[in-house]
């Protein structure tokens, strides 16, 4: 008989252990079905959270073989196919405090969420008596970010949070800031965005895990690009991230390609670069990886590129 073998990471507040459960394989079942079955029929001491069963309450995020899923909407067959095995390892979501077994603590995250003022700061055009006018197009801008169900899958998968000491904002928090910054009824987008900038916005490492795994398909990485762009529009251009982005922007305009030699200097400034990167530069020159005298030449068609820049500027206006 075919069977599932689940290896579930358990925790009781003091001790951690891995417990194995075996039960008959069934077709067309979800992850949540399996966890519920274990609790109902095999081991009532196993704990996890779940509620709505249809991907709207956000309770049942769990990590299987290192990837985070929303349990209720994930077919076991899909996971079996991915890993080519019916033996699966379950862990609680990463980057959360664990309370027991697969149960994580959301409380600390809400403290962090509050940094971005996750509520509407109404403009004077609306009133509590009459509400607001908002066009269909304006609504469409906030339609997708308000799909967020706070399931925590993005946090669990975030490559920066995995190595961060806790300041960097979880993707769902960035989403919340974005959602209010874009709402035509909100009169103070800076109040949502400034805290994002102050809390390491530029540390996103572009691992694409959040956008890949979000069970609601929210374009989180596009939002990060938007937030960065907006901070620069707000005038915050004098930081490593912004200078780095502009180094690319400027080089392409100038010659079409990146000048790798100058990139650290443009990003960090001359003083810091000399202080920090001389040993690395020396290593690179020694190995022939870089030639300090090499300057990229203008590519063929650079005039056309500059026209594109000019055109893009007009369009973006």
């Amino acid at each position, binding site marked *: 008989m075919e069977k599932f073998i689940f290896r579930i990471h358990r925790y*009781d507040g003091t001790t951690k252990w891995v417990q194995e459960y075996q039960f008959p394989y069934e077709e067309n079942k979800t992850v949540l079905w399996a966890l519920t079955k274990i609790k109902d029929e095999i081991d009532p*001491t196993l704990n996890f959270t779940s*509620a709505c069963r*249809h991907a709207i*309450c956000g309770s049942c995020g769990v990590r299987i073989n290192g990837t985070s899923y929303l349990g209720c909407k994930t077919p076991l067959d899909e996971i079996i196919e991915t890993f080519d095995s019916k033996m699966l390892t379950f862990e609680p979501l990463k980057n959360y405090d664990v309370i027991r077994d697969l149960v994580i603590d959301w*409380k600390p995250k809400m403290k962090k969420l509050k940094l971005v*003022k996750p509520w509407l700061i109404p403009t004077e055009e609306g009133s509590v008596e009459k509400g607001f006018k908002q066009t269909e197009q304006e609504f469409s801008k906030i339609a997708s970010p308000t799909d967020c169900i*706070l399931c925590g899958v993005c946090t669990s998968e975030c490559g920066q949070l995995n190595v961060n000491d806790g300041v960097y904002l979880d993707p769902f928090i960035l989403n919340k800031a974005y959602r209010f910054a874009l709402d035509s009824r909100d009169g103070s987008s800076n109040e949502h965005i400034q805290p994002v900038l102050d809390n390491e916005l530029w540390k996103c490492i572009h691992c694409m895990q959040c956008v890949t795994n979000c069970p609601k398909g929210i374009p989180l990485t596009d939002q990060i690009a938007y937030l960065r762009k907006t901070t620069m529009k707000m005038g915050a251009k004098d930081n490593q991230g912004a200078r780095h982005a502009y180094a690319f922007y400027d080089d392409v305009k100038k010659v079409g390609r990146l000048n790798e030699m100058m990139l650290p200097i443009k990003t960090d400034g001359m003083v810091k670069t000399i202080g920090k990167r001389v040993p690395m530069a020396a290593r690179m020159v020694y190995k022939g990886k870089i030639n300090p005298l090499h300057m990229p030449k203008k590519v063929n068609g650079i005039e056309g590129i500059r026209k594109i820049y000019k055109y893009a500027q007009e369009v973006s206006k």
Partner: protein
Amino acid sequence: MLAYDVVVVGAGGAGMMAALSASEDESLKVACISKIFPTRSHTGAAQGGINAAMGYRDSTDSPEKHFKDTVKGSDFLADQDAVEFFTTKMPEVISELDYYGVPFSRDGNGNIAQRPFGGASSPRTCYSADKTGHVILHSIYEQCLKKEVDFFDEWFLLSLVVEDSSFTGLVVMNIKTGEIVPIKAKSVVIATGGFGRIYWNRTTNALNMTGDGTAACFNIGIPLKDPEFVQFHPTGLASTGVLLSEACRGEGGYLLNKDGERFMARYAPEKMELGPRDLVSRSIETEIKEGRGFGEGMDSYVLMDLRHLGKKKIMERLPQVRELAMEFEGVDMLEEPVPIRPSCHYMMGGIHVINPETLSTQIEGIHAAGECACVSLHGANRLGGNSVADVVLFGKYAGIGARETAHRRSYGSETKLNQEAQVWNKKFETIRNKKTGKNIVDIRNKMAQTMWDNVGIFRKEEEMATALKEINQLIKDYKDTYIGDPAVRYNMAFVNYVEIGNLLDLAKGVVMAALNRKESRGSHSRGDYQTRDDANFLAHTLVHKRENDDYELEYIQVKITKYQPEERKY
């Protein structure tokens, strides 16, 4: 001892609205406790919309029309003072939600968009695509964060405490630590949702819709009102019971039997698919019974066909619904019709509320709002789009009511609160260390089976009598159950144990009230009494739990101010 002027139990739409409006008064200490993290609450599952006569889409719409539709929908069992208060205030509440940042879908004029819904004479259901409850829940939560409401997430209500006929507070469990804690309170708002889980998996309800607050009130003598009125949503997904939004019918979906016939023509020739929920559910079950459904027995179903709406409309108006059908039924509604069957959806009955404007109960200090309460707004059948509306409006007024009550009252004695906490501590210890006895999951499943088989959409004396016998037996069995988890920290087995106890108590109320209502009205449809009997049953049922755990029925008058009962036709 922890002490709060106002304690709100439940953090769904009603609970958080209550917490928010109670917090308006900054002189008061307000706490909101919830057995789950607030945004997990079941308000979030509401898809289709929220009713208010804004008149944006149809300028002839009015609160008066909304009033009339609701009363008619209720099969004349709703209290008309409550309904009128509700429909008059709803437009204000929608604007308030808009001001709180709820992302409503919009019409071409920049106003909140409205769609037609079952049983409504005008398109008055405001919505946000098909995730209306979700965005409302999150927006209210955001407002609570702004107001710095004191949340106790994953704290579970065990009981309410009354000493010398006076409410003194509540006993709760901090699930995360396993501590059992008494909380002193001047007033409380119970907003713990419905108890559709008496049918366990044959429901659209979340796993934790177990009526904890309703049971807590019931146990201290507040009667259960109209529990026999259980709404079965016509369009549950066939294989899981998960809800497929009423918006499908609202946007023009067809219901088809196996002959490809739009069978609603037989039951509601004018309104067709847009008939009220009770009528449509019965029509589907009749089709199945008479052999015009697909599949066999428990797996029978009919089809919801949306293909004629076209891709654009489906993608714009029903994107999440489409996803849902794909993920949970494996059907893409752009290509194929979706198999559906009625599923228990909503409890019209609940905690007997005596004043619709303060949501107070017969015990001074205890208020109740939302699905756990019976105001009675919905009477014998709730209209789609009236539940999220109920939740925000009555949640708000319950908060105001509780705020005023808190000013009138002072903290009571701690004696009984401490005793009650001790009782629960002992119970917790005993239960978690018990190693043998009846299996709690079996008890739960047997309860669901008998409720579905015998107290479902069509009801009969004999079957219900069987159910009553079985429920009584299960209540006995429950006393000798064990849970199999000795842990103190995050012991969900214990929480589930208490929940199942609550469900059993409430299920018994449902059966008794249903047995004794010898007529068919709204969602309560009896094969042996097929017509409405206003002479004998134009009345609310009150189920009392007496000292010795005996149940007693009483009937009270329905408040009729404007609309005299007439035949209900669609």
